């Protein structure tokens, strides 16, 4: 069966500090991978998605970037965090073809102070 991990589970960072969130998927190959942010009172917002190693598409211009160094690893980064970057970050995966459902990881709660 497939499993998706996110690390860390919670993070408190000062404004202006860098960020690196990691997502890994087990039990599948060539997944599509996604980063979402969930802010209080708002729906999940797609930030980035990737259909393969090194292939990143950005949905929302912002202070964040994403990378996919390996087939089942997806990383969300920032060079300098803003207060507005606080939120619940969710990684999701989908099989490359055949089904449309996206499956979510446990999330990372980021608080920028």
């Amino acid at each position, binding site marked *: 069966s497939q499993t998706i991990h*996110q690390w860390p589970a919670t993070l408190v960072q000062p404004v202006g500090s860098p960020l690196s969130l990691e997502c890994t998927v087990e039990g599948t190959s060539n997944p*599509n991978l*996604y980063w979402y942010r969930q802010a209080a*009172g*708002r*729906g*999940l*917002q*797609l930030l980035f*998605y990737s*259909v393969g190693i090194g292939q990143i598409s950005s*949905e929302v211009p912002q202070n964040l970037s994403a990378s996919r160094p390996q087939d089942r690893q997806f990383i969300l980064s920032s060079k300098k965090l803003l207060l507005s970057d606080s939120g619940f970050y*969710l990684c*999701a995966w*989908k099989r490359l073809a055949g*089904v*449309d*459902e*996206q*499956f*979510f*990881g*446990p*999330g990372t*709660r980021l608080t920028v102070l």
Partner: protein
Amino acid sequence: EDQVTQSPEALRLQEGESSSLNCSYTVSGLRGLFWYRQDPGKGPEFLFTLYSAGEEKEKERLKATLTKKESFLHITAPKPEDSATYLCAVQANYNTDKLIFGTGTRLQVFP
């Protein structure tokens, strides 16, 4: 602009009191509609995918239905463990991957 609206924002039910959650959507072409359950502090858990008007899916006390403009999540004889936020999302035909989410309905079921 593609949009998903869920109502009500919050719903309190007595155990055993059946009800329905609504998800209305506007997209230029619907590829699929998805329902998720989210517990506090956790990632969304996939429940159902619906593709065409008239389609229905069931899982335990939950049944999802789809029309051309909206979807309903019917909860029959709910139990306290059904308490969660229920999220609806749509995927448009012209974009193969992007899900557009509503803000969810927070359901509380009291014993």
